[in-house]
């Protein structure tokens, strides 16, 4: 494989695209394009061997690129005809675009798709709901992780409402030298994703609010969104020193070194924290407005897998996708990658305590996805980029919650008809 990879690389570099079919067509082999380079070992040591137990005739190679370069390098390889057979799909528009310009194979009629709910498939289905073009693989759930030892030391209990949440932050700040909440705004996405999209669903009632935004019956200037920004602005005094220059790895380290009590999290952090934190940590869902209110969580469809239309091994690729819909894959995937939750309806037992806490919220709360992902980030200015920018500015104290909501709404109204 090492040599083949080198040949591939050299050929790509030299622009000698013609060389590639010769190296690739030797046997039925599938190459998977992915941005999950952290998962290389899990794929090569666990998932692919399990697949080969049932299908020894198909050779599978997992070839990830760095996450930030993935979209650009994948597009370049697709255009040059050197992309792999299976393509890991970003949710929504990036993949929809690939389907529309004919690089992804429609999966109509693939039996494995029946094991997924419509919400799970929504991220990889055309706007009219007719065609699905990627097999849903995993979602990530937002919530908060907390350092159990600090909570015990300061005699704190897990907050259920936002008032309790703020009270806990105040107690940590006044009663100890710990940083109450680990969050930085330098990378901007932390503020938007771990902040706004994490606590927001409780304000805008999950799917109800998200779909209303798409229909145009709700606006970003509505109370629900302004209140979300107001709530975020209140976090600022409890964040680490110099949080405006704090980046994601700093935030992670602040928590894993035991210097911060609460970490607004994405479930994908579980694996990192298991490896780095030498204290016990737990998780709680985003607090609600009043005790007993319905709760909503961001259960965001994040990873799918589709077939490259130019692939020479489409049958093998379909076999692989169908295998991915089995409970065997779901179980293997969920337990090898705690924090990435399989989307199929198959019953899965997750052994990791924090991951199983996260997934248990699916039973108690209603799931939704990030509200900027479907349709709303298609135009210029790009809504997701705007949310990153204004969320960071609100927490930095450079912008009022009202102005932030207004900027998001005016940006959207410029190009999206239902908001005009």
């Amino acid at each position, binding site marked *: 494989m090492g040599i083949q990879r080198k040949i591939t690389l050299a050929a790509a570099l030299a622009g000698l695209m013609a060389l590639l079919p010769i190296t690739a067509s030797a046997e039925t082999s599938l190459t998977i394009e992915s941005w999950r380079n952290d998962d290389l070992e899990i794929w090569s040591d666990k998932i692919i061997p399990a697949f080969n137990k049932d299908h020894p005739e198909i050779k599978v190679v997992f070839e990830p690129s760095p996450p930030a370069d993935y979209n650009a390098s994948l597009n370049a390889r697709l255009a040059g005809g050197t992309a792999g057979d299976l393509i890991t799909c970003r949710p929504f528009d990036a993949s929809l675009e690939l389907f529309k310009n004919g690089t992804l194979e429609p999966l109509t009629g693939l039996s494995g798709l029946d094991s997924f709910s419509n919400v799970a498939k929504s991220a990889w289905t055309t706007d009219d709901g007719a065609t699905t073009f990627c097999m849903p693989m995993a979602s990530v759930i937002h919530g908060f992780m907390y350092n159990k030892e600090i909570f015990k030391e300061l005699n704190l209990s897990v907050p259920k409402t936002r008032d309790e949440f703020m009270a806990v932050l105040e107690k940590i700040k006044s009663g100890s030298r710990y940083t109450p909440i680990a969050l930085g705004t*330098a990378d901007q996405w932390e503020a938007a994703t771990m902040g706004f999209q994490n606590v927001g669903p409780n304000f805008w009632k999950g799917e109800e609010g998200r779909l209303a935004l798409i229909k145009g019956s709700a606006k970003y200037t509505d109370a629900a969104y302004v209140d979300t920004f107001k709530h975020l602005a209140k976090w600022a005094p409890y964040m680490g020193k110099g949080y405006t220059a704090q980046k994601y790895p700093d935030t992670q380290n602040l928590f894993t070194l035991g210097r911060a009590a609460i970490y607004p999290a994405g479930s994908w952090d579980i694996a990192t924290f298991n490896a780095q934190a030498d204290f016990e940590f737990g998780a709680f869902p985003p607090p609600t407005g009043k005790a007993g209110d319905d709760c909503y969580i961001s259960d965001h469809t994040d990873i799918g897998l589709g077939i490259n239309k130019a692939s020479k091994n489409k049958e093998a690729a379909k076999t692989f996708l169908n295998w991915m819909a089995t409970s065997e894959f779901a179980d293997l995937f969920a337990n090898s990658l705690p924090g990435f939750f399989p989307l199929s309806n198959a019953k899965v037992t997750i052994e990791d305590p924090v991951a199983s806490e996260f997934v248990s919220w699916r039973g108690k709360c209603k799931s939704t996805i990030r509200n900027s992902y479907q349709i709303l980030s*298609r135009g210029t200015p790009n809504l997701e980029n705007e949310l990153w920018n204004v969320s960071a500015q609100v927490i930095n104290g450079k912008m009022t919650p009202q102005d932030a909501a207004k900027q998001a709404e005016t940006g959207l109204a410029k190009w999206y008809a239902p908001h005009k």
Partner: protein
Amino acid sequence: MEKGVSARRFPIHIAVFLAPAVLIYSLFMIYPLIDTFRFSLFSPNEAGNLNFVAFDNYVKLLTDPDWSSSFWNALYNNFILFLVHMLVQNPIGLLLAALLSLPVLKGRQIYRTAIFMPTMMSVVIIGFIWQLILNPLWGVAETLMWHVGLDAFFYPWLGDEATALITLSLISVWQWVGIPMMLIYAALLGIPEDLTEAAEIDGASHMQIFWKIKLPLILPTLGVVSVLTFVANFNAFDLIYAVKGALAGPNFSTDIMGTLFYRVFFGFQLQIGDASMGATVATTMFLIILVGILFYLFVIQRRMQRYTF
């Protein structure tokens, strides 16, 4: 002699010798430039087919508020980046070169190597190191400032709209100051000693020798250094991308032409890449640099020639 050459038939061997360089340069430099320009004249329709739209993309970039606000912001920031380099990097480079060329200086090689060293390091490493140094949580900067009683002045510079760009510019200056230093140093070494000796005999001080004799003689080098600074800064991308990412925060205060191009051409997160607008930004960058260079060649360099005689 000249008459003889022109009377002979066309010298084919010259064309043969030039061909490899011309071909390779045309294929990898001129062709992509022209093709980028051609591409910027097209725009994809709903179905993704490219239509010829002439200069519509340029009009959009410069007049549509969604595009022009990012464009002017990036251009403005780019000028700030360039100015900091011109006002800080090049004078320091000149000063260091002047100090290095002092005949009394000991350990010259050590200084020269140490100052030039950061230039050879990857920008990613530079960005990483400086972020660690300036990190408000565990950075060494605050401790160092505390030792000299200045810790009250410590601030998360990279996180504030008002200071982030200047901080990044100074990090870049720190990395690249070795280049102007080396170029100017080489020029200073090239000044014949009889000139300075003659001045010394005439009773000129060190300062007078530097300002009245050496500086005018190295002006062409300073011109080249300025042009290099101009081109490098308007093509800059890597340090900003490594430290602040493609969204160049906070609030686009560190966004320059390179990062704007990256976002437009390759896309970012949920923003889908737009190749024809990307080509428009790229061509605009090329034109800005071209105008800058032409200004230097026709206005400044011509005037400078007088002093070199």
